[in-house]
């Protein structure tokens, strides 16, 4: 079963983000990049790729690479429940393995705060910033940078 997320009412200066869970943190991507949410089917591992590339799947006849976000962000711990959210970046469909999809919310541009630079944490460049909602902290991911600007063709 696919739950396709639709962007159906656009309000000026407001945008929507999809919030998902990685371990006990909440991350978010812009809804306009996300295409669908799918259950994890069999992933075929691809040799000679970085360890965070889980492999490829067949999505209606299209070969879609799947990136394990936990591994990408060096988040340890196990995750029993996995979902794939597909995003389209640079005309390429890529699946992101996340623990769970939480919700879709509206936010305004001015809510974004710069992410604090924490030593040993995930690469700053991957992040657009943080959004605080009550006691929740949502980490906004810059997909383009995360997927394409960092060398993801680590040999061996």
């Amino acid at each position, binding site marked *: 079963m696919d739950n396709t997320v639709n962007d159906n009412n656009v309000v000026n200066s407001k945008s929507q983000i999809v919030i998902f869970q990685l371990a006990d943190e909440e991350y978010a991507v812009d809804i306009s990049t996300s295409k669908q949410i799918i259950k994890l089917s069999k992933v*075929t591992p691809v040799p000679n790729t970085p360890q965070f590339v889980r492999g490829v799947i067949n999505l209606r*006849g299209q070969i879609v690479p799947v990136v394990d976000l936990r591994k990408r962000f060096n988040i340890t711990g196990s995750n029993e429940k996995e979902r794939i959210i597909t995003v389209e970046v640079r005309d390429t469909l*890529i699946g992101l393995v996340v623990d769970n999809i939480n919700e879709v919310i509206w936010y305004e541009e001015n809510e974004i705060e710069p992410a604090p630079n924490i030593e040993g944490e995930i690469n700053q460049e991957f992040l657009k910033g943080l959004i605080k909602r009550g006691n929740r902290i949502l980490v906004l991911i810059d997909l383009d940078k995360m997927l394409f600007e960092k060398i993801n063709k680590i040999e061996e």
Partner: protein
Amino acid sequence: MDNNSQYLQMFFDESAEYLQQLNENVLLLEENPQDEEIINSVFRAAHSVKGMSATMGFTRLTDLTHKMENILSKVRNKEMQINEKLIDVLFAGLDYIKDLVDDIKNNGEELTDINNYLIRLENVLLNKDNDDDIQENTNSKDKFADVSDEEEIIEDFEKILGLSKEEESDLLDSMNVEDLLYNIKVVLDDNCLLKNVRGYMVLKKAQELGFLVKSSPSQSEIEDEDFDLSIYIIIVSTLDKETIISEFQDIIDVKEVKIHTRDVKNKVDIATESVNKANDFTSSDDISNNDHVTPTNDISNNNDLRSDDDNFEENISKVNSEIKESAKTDKEQIIESDINKKTEKKKAKKLSNVQVSPTVRVDIKKLDNLMNMVGELLINKTRLAGLNVDNDVYQDIILQLDRVTTDLHHIVMQIRMVPIGGIFNRFPRMVRDLSKELNKDIDLLIEGADTELDRSIIDELADPLMHIIRNAIDHGIEIPELREKNGKAKKGNILLNAYQKGSEIVIEVEDDGAGLDKEKIIEKAISRGIISYDDANEMDEKDIYNLVFHPGFSTSEKVTDISGRGVGMDVVKRVVESLDGQIFIESEKGIGTRFIISLPLTLAITQALMVKINNEVYAIPLNTISESHLISPKEILQVRGQDVMVLRDSTIPLVECARKLNLDIEYGTYKEKEEVPVVIINSGEKQIGLIVDELLNQQEIVIKSLGNYLLNIKNISGATIVGDGEVALILDVRNIA
């Protein structure tokens, strides 16, 4: 400029086609300067480009092609001799056309400055301008037909609108004494709107002026706008030439009118002859001075030969030009045993040169989509068949489905196939120009131009081939003096050859030049730090030649403009490999060099052997496999620490796939197995044995790319979807060893 992009696209496509045609034909023209067929086709193509440019409103292109057309028209009228200089000028013009078209493509407007070239064209025109002007001045409305017009028009009419003898004699029978028979050529303006309306008016006018015998295009062709800008008409009229000309000139958009009075007298002879033919039974030996003696059975030859003689006698006192003319006419008659047939053929030919062909242009993207869908269908068919339902109807459906999908696949493949000649044809011109530039004398021979290859592959191949040929010209073929000194023919040869070998297409570029210099290559490779001295001693001939594929490698002493432009053979190799192909070099010093490229027929679907490695299914394309074996671990030997097996006298190094794929498992476990599955592959010119865990089946796979997120993954060339809907990776075994 408000051009509908669709028309613009058509303009680009067609101008590219015409340019190609022009390049080929001008080259042919240089070799056969007397061939009127070629001259005409060059003229027509230039004319078509002019027409298109004018229609689209590209003024520079229109000017340029118009001037070129003038020159060609002089050539056509034999007022200008074809020589090397003229060919050079024409080629330069073609380059300008290409530049202008590129300007439009890239910037939406014409940027290239052609003024100097136009002056050059003018000079060419003026230098040779000794007699009648060819309508340099297209606006002149009061041009009377002159001698050259007459000649041109006679020629045109013979080609386009001949009259059969029956038509001719019928006509003469019906004509009155004061009637004259006219050939009229009316040319419409390039920018003429509503061509069919103007054409119709021209015909209508002809009917007003006299009796319209025949026209090309016919009335229906005019209605369909199925004609160029010229309308040929034969009419019987009592009016004089000048009146007729001015009458036609009065029609809007008529650019020029040429008229020629058909030589009725001469025709009367023939007419009379043909009338008398039936009741005259004189033997053919009797070739006296008799006008009306005609052999019965001999329809044309003898008869016409004789009339030829007669005419000659008649015309002996006439001026030269007329002798020439009538001789020409009569010669034509000898050749034309059947004017009608010839006219028809001519017409067909003319049509094929105009842009009417029973083809549809399809965007390659649509074909890609189609191919993908067919791929999907194949996968699902395989899945269905895999269900193995025990039911006769089901089995029957599966069989049908199998047949249909296979046929569909083949048809789609065929649609995508185009002859490789399309790119081969670009090279003769290049070879000519380059060899001139380098003072070399080189012939390019092309074979197998009709070999067909997937369109997407062909498009990619043009640049690598161009580079290899440039290399052959630049570094391969020696200068004539040197060739002579070494006892070779002064003229060097490059052979471009394509042929199909099984499921592969092989393209060879061979030259009979100096060959590759191994010492030089090694020297260079060492100085560039590509290899060490020790490496050099280990290398065999093939390895040494392959060094030229290293980035930035060039054996040329001095960097020439031609092939030492930073784009090296490494790019060639990369492109060929990206097309799933391979490239090798064979060379012999002093004898020549041969580059061999082998490519799969199509990029989309191929036969593959499915294997299992670490519980994952992988596909190995069959075209890389020579055979597969199950061997016993006892058959695995050691040579210098490398596992090898012996297969029919040759020692084949063994490579464990898992290791090459950096799989996180324990290596070398195969030695404990009872049987070791080995797939023997051809990697370059070498054979290598790949050790896998299990050999599965052979099947047709649809090749899919891993997309641009996973680019250039080592030893993986793509993926395919197998029967159960899962993804299997395709092994790239070319450089696996």
